[in-house]
């Protein structure tokens, strides 16, 4: 039997083939040491225990957030032999292990992002009142999705929900959720609000929502965001980066839309109040008409009283000029041939005069005409 002789390149290829077949994907848990990021892109570190140390290599893109030496993490990756740099595990995802480590990692990320102003209150945008379209990023068959939709249906109608079904825990969760956020933000008709939610779980289950890429995607969304992760007590960095945080999926639905039962009562009150407003306007208008009528009638009464007074005094005046009154007082009206005599020039001697007194007429002949003076 001939001995098998490799070239170095062939040997590397053969080893990699073997590794790929035997260990397409490995999960290794250990303590980080010699953590290093090169050119803001390449990440190197070792995982070690008391007896061994293994090299890891990958990109910052696959980091959950800032890490440091001494943290215990679980890394998913593929072992390979590099033609020049030797053996390493190419990591795909890293997750701190245990509540303490997860919290430490989240604290590191919080500090980093807070320094960038990602959680600043002035970044928060108001959510639209009564949205007509909602982008919903969650696990479609989860209790969280069921709770959210149930409460939304109970409270309000006419909303279109665009549901992006994603993993909300595990290795693939951050990438899927980030893709969903970016996809919905890229739609030609974007929904009015973006809801990202999942129900309660262990710190490890909720860890995806403390992933740096996900937190940044939430902060970068041009659609206002509402994030509700876990129970009341859980606060993830995604929630802090959101425009609004809800304590639970149920609470998210409550914050988004009003309750139609309550709204119906409000409408009934509005109806009543507008009706009363109109009635009071009508009443006022009626009162105004009444006031004007009274004013006019009072004015008319005054007018006619004045008129009557005028007539009465005129009548008195007229009476004063009545010739009959003069006749009664002893004056006489003298006429000749039907004409009143106002001057001695009108009469001649022996002419026949008619002298009218109050109670009759005297016919007389002119005997003599004497001129005054």
């Amino acid at each position, binding site marked *: 039997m001939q001995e098998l002789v490799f070239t170095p390149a062939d040997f590397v290829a053969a080893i990699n083939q073997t590794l790929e077949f035997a260990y397409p994907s490995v999960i290794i848990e250990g303590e980080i040491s010699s953590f290093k990021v090169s050119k803001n892109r390449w990440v190197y570190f070792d995982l070690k225990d008391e007896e061994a140390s293994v090299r890891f290599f990958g990109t910052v893109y696959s980091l959950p957030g800032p890490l440091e030496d001494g943290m215990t993490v679980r890394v998913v990756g593929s072992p390979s032999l590099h033609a020049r740099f030797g053996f390493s595990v190419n990591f795909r995802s890293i997750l701190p292990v245990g509540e303490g480590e997860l919290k430490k990692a989240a604290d590191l990320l919080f500090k980093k992002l807070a320094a960038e102003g990602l959680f600043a209150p002035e970044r928060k945008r108001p959510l*639209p*009142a*009564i949205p*007509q379209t909602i982008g919903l990023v969650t696990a*479609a068959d989860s209790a969280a999705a069921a709770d959210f*939709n149930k409460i*939304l*249906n109970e409270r*309000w*109608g*006419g*909303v*279109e*929900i*665009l*549901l*992006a*079904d*994603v993993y909300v825990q595990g290795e693939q969760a951050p990438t*899927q959720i980030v*893709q*969903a956020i970016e*996809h*919905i933000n890229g739609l030609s008709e974007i929904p009015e609000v973006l809801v990202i939610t999942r129900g309660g779980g262990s710190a490890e289950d909720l860890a995806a929502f403390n992933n740096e890429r996900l937190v940044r995607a939430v902060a970068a969304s041009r659609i206002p965001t509402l994030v509700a992760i876990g129970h009341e007590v859980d606060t993830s960095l995604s929630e802090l980066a959101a425009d609004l945080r809800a304590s639970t999926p149920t609470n998210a639905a409550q914050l988004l839309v009003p309750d*139609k039962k309550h*709204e*119906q009562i409000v*409408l009934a009150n*509005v*109806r009543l*109040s*507008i*009706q009363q*407003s*109109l009635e009071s*306007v*009508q009443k006022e*208008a009626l009162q105004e008409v009444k006031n004007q009528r009274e004013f006019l009638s009072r004015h008319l009464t005054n007018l006619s009283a004045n008129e009557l007074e005028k007539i009465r005094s005129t009548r008195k005046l007229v009476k004063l000029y009545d010739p009959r009154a003069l006749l009664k007082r002893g004056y006489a009206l003298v006429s000749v041939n039907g004409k009143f005599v106002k001057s001695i020039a009108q009469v001649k001697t022996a002419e026949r005069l008619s002298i009218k007194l109050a109670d009759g007429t005297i016919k007389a002949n002119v005997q003599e005409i004497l001129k005054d003076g």
Partner: protein
Amino acid sequence: MANAEKPKSYREMSQQLEEIMEWFESGDIDIDEAIKKYEEATKLLDEMEKYLKTAENKIKKISTAK
């Protein structure tokens, strides 16, 4: 109605209703205008109540994987 083809959203109707209520509260009100506004408000209220009783939510699943 001029814009009968596109139904108004509840939010729009709600805003219009609010404007009418503010108008009624502004005082110095003309009765003809008041009757017109009242009819407008009644129509809005009818539509809003109908919306509350009949509108349903729709869920559309979208694919977001790259």
